[in-house]
């Protein structure tokens, strides 16, 4: 490009006819050459200043920022290790679990499992044993021993239909409650097993694994609450039946009183 320009310019200079053309070419050529010419070299003083400026930025702004960042991360580490998750307190919390297991678990189990059976006769002893054995596979035996202890429903020739219905309902709900309680006794043992397992794992838990245990414990509480509700429902049925039984007797008393009054009036009328 530069060579082409120079050749063209030289040819124009050689072939210029008049002085005016020569002056014009000289001006145009000089200006164009000045514009096309390579830039002058930088002064040495400017280069040193630029390097020093870069060094100043590194030693000033960047170093300060890195120092601050370092200090903050160091503070975060110290905060984690000494305030939020101090290892000594984590170990202390874990260490507390095992002695408590040793101190309470078996003792409470022994208290809970001590025999509370109190029947003295053969028939009642059988019923008491079967209703406290925490088994759910022998409900038929509960019915049999219950009948042995409390007697069967009267035959239809031996009692009024109302009496038979009420005694059957009373017996049914009493038996239903006893069976529900056998199931809930079994559930209590399993619930205690779940609590033991949770406590065992808590003895070696970490802050990050503990939320799983607490969540599982809360869910187990919901399940225990549901079982308590089932027991309460059984008790409600039983209490409702007892109330209904008393009320049915009240109804019958009213009927009998009316009948007796009528009979007395009839008797007096005859006399």
């Amino acid at each position, binding site marked *: 490009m530069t060579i082409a320009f120079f050749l063209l310019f030289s040819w124009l200079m050689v072939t210029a006819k008049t002085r005016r053309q020569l002056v014009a070419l000289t001006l145009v050529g000089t200006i164009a050459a*000045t514009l096309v010419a390579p830039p002058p070299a930088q002064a040495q003083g400017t280069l040193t200043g630029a390097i020093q400026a870069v060094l100043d930025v590194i030693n000033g702004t960047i170093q300060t920022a890195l120092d601050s960042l370092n200090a903050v991360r160091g503070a975060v580490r110290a905060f984690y290790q000494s305030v939020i998750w101090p290892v000594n307190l984590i170990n202390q919390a874990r260490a507390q679990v095992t002695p408590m297991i040793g101190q309470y678990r078996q003792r409470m189990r022994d208290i809970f499992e001590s025999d509370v059976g109190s029947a003295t006769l053969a028939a009642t002893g059988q019923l008491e044993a079967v209703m406290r054995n925490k088994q759910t596979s022998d409900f038929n035996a509960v019915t049999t021993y219950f009948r042995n202890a409390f007697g069967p429903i009267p035959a239809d020739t031996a009692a009024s239909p109302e009496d038979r*219905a009420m005694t059957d309902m009373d017996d049914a709900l009493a038996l239903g409650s006893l069976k529900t309680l056998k199931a809930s006794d079994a559930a209590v043992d399993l619930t205690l097993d779940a609590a033991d397992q949770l406590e065992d794992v808590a003895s070696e838990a970490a802050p990050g*694994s503990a939320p799983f245990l607490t969540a599982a414990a809360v869910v187990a509480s919901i399940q225990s609450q549901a079982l308590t509700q089932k027991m309460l429902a059984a008790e409600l049925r039983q209490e409702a039946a007892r109330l*209904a039984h008393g009320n049915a007797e009240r109804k019958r008393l009213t009927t009998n009183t009316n009948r007796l009054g009528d009979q007395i009036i009839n008797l007096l009328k005859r006399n």
Partner: protein
Amino acid sequence: MRKAIGQGLDGAKRSFYWACDHKIRVVVLALVLVLLAPQPVKTQFIDPCCAIMGAGLSSISSTLSNVIGGGLSGILSIERNIFDFERDIVWPQRLIDEAKGLVGSIQGIYAQIESVTQIAVNSATLASTQQLEQNILSRDSAQIGQTGGHYTAVYGPVPGATSAPVEVRNVIDITDAVAQAAMKRAIQIDHLATLELEAAERINRSIQRAAPGSAPIIEAQAAAWLIRANAYTQAAIADLMRVRAIDLAGAAAEVKSGATYNSALGQQLIDLLKRQ
């Protein structure tokens, strides 16, 4: 060859004479040539500018290594330390897996418990009592509508207005109402307890899939369910208390009516004796 040399010399002579005749043009051409000529390349070894640049770059490199590299190394060291601490002390994968495994194990225990609670406990032997028992053990709140009919079939209706005094009818009716309501509440509570067990199983499955950071959210949900379950338990206890309260009130009502009847009977006997 000689001819060519001769022509060359002639050309040179003509150029020289032209240059002598056009000195200004030659000066302008020379000036433009100087301006356009490429700048000489500076050697790396003897040019002082390169030496200064080399020293400057070396200084920058050294500063970068010391200041930035050193600072970053310090931060990296702390970050590694924090990472190790969090990985080994706060969130150790082995213990997280162990806790998740325990959740599965506890879920197995409650599955056993749930199957135990599903065993039938019905025991009635007569047709009417079997219907009532089946209804109140149904765990299905949709069957509450039939409870009243089955109840009346077993325990009888409220006496008619001509069969009993209004006070007695009132006591009988409220007692039947509370007994029936308790049986209906028992159906509701059984149904709710079954749903709570279902929900608990779902929440347990969520815990097994959770991360340490999401487990507290699931725990919060489980806590909400626990509060709800407590509320239902309270409702059941409230109905139980109502049953006992009405039982007590019924016993008191009997004493009251007995006193009234005794007084009336005494007055009637006195009147009878006076007549005789």
